[in-house]
Structure formats: C-alpha cells, structure tokens
C-alpha cells in the first residue's frame, strides 16, 4: 500500500496538535475557575497577588521565553543539519527548564516559610478570597511545574536521540513535536504570569 504507515510526518504533527488542544482545555478548567473567583473576590485577589514575588515571576517569564526561542532554533538547526548546534540549543533549553524549576523552588519555600500553603492556618484565618487565590495559584503553578518536568524529560530524550543520530535533518518529527510541547508550556506561563503576579 502506498499509505505511509511508518512516517506520516503531517499525521504525527496533527496528532501532537490534537494532544496540545486537550492540554489547553486541561489548563482551561483552571483558568475558568480563576475567572469566576476573580469576579467574585476582586479585592482579595488584588491583595493576595501583591504578596507574590514579582521578581521571580518576571525572571521566570524571561527564562521560559528564552527557552522557547532556543528550542525553536534547535528545530531550525536540525533542519539545516547542524547537529552539534542542535545539541547545544537543546541543552540550553533544558538548562532553562532547570533554572525555572530552581526559582520555583526558592519562591515556594519562601512562601511556605511565610505560612502560605494550601489549608495553612494562616490562610484559614484570613479572608476566604485569599485562600481561594492561593489554592488556585498552587494548583495552577504546580500543574505547570509538572509540565515543565515532563517537557524537560521529553527534550532530554530528544537530545539523546539527536546525539545518537536517530533524529536528523531527514527525520526530525521527534524534535518538532517535543518543541511544540515545550512552546505550549511557555504559552501557559504567558497567561499565568499576569494573572497571578500582576493583577493589581
């Protein structure tokens, strides 16, 4: 049969996109809740978001944007058959992911230290809107963090495959799909950042 059962490039990409759609809806549920509770507790959300670490938030935004660019470059590099450069760029992306997670770790430990974590006595004592805000914040950012971990792992696997030569200028669907996934992780953050760190 002429059907390319083995490498259907467009098919693989379509599949990846479909998967990304379902990821969007997954996060969409949390954004929905955010919208509803923002409408209900605008005051509390404002106060609570003032206590967020704007510095970490902005830094992490920049880091993710950079990583997104690096992985996009990695795709260009592999298309141009620059294997070594591809590896460096992927390495850069993964490095960014690690820094991002490290920052998150610092930020969260500080917040935990201040008594802000789900179901903490401090939040329970405060106005309900704030505890809802932080509840959402931890869940959304936690889920995002999980995606960063998964994305980082996927890109590591891709890097290994590039290094072994399984992924090359003639067949780079793995890299392309991995990159798509990584961009999506970046996209979510582009929304999380203003919603949680900047609502005044």
């Amino acid at each position, binding site marked *: 049969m002429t059907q390319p059962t083995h490498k259907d490039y467009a098919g693989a990409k379509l599949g990846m996109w479909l998967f990304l759609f379902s990821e969007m809806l997954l996060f969409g549920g949390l954004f929905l809740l955010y919208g509803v509770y923002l409408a209900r507790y605008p005051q509390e959300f404002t106060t609570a978001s003032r206590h967020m670490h704007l510095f970490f938030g902005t830094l992490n935004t*920049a880091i993710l944007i950079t990583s997104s660019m690096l992985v996009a470059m990695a795709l260009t590099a592999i298309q141009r058959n620059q294997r070594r450069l591809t590896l460096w760029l992927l390495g850069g992306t993964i490095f960014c992911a690690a820094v991002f997670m490290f920052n998150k770790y610092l930020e969260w430990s500080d917040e935990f230290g201040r008594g802000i974590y789900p179901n903490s006595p401090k939040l329970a004592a405060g106005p309900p809107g704030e505890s809802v805000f932080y509840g959402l914040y931890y869940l959304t950012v936690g889920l995002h963090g999980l995606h960063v971990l998964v994305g980082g792992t996927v890109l590591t696997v891709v890097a290994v495959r590039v290094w072994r030569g399984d992924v090359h200028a003639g067949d780079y669907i793995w890299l392309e799909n991995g990159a798509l996934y990584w961009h999506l992780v970046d996209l979510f953050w582009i929304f999380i950042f203003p919603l949680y760190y900047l609502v005044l």
Partner: protein
Amino acid sequence: MSSDSHAPHIVGYGKLIAVWLGLLFFTGLTVWVSRQQTGIGHVWGSLAISVVKSGLVITFYMHMRHEGWLLRSLLFVALLTLAIFIGFTFFDVLYR
C-alpha cells in the same frame, strides 16, 4: 520521510531572535502597565498583551504560519470551545 507535498519551512535564526526580543518587550510592557494605577482595566490590559504574546509564539515558534488551513481551523475550534466553556459559565456567575 514525509508524504507532504510541500517542503518543510525553515524559520531563520534572525526571525526567531526578533520574535524573542518582541516577547521580552511585551513582558516588560505588561509589568510596566500593571504598575500604573488603572484599576481593574489591568486584567484586560495584561490579558490583551498575553494574547499578543501567545500569538507570536504560535505563529512563529510553533510554525502556525506555515501550516495549512486544516490545522489553523482546528486550533480555532479548540480555542473557541475553551472560550465557550468559560463564557457560558459566566451566564451563571454574573447573574446570580
């Protein structure tokens, strides 16, 4: 490798860097806007900026620019669905 009729598009490094600069600029802008005292308008302002930013990522980094109508319209359907889910919930929340 590919049964596609059209050859893969290669996006040059220069363009990627330009988009990167744009994204950084918008990040700065959104932070700056949020520090101005403009009330609840912020939420809409910063969301609008986020939409522009994600548009950049999707168009250039995710190569949507070079995809056919199929993927574009599917993306549209997915986003529309999400918008409806969120929007319709507000029929309840806003009028309760």
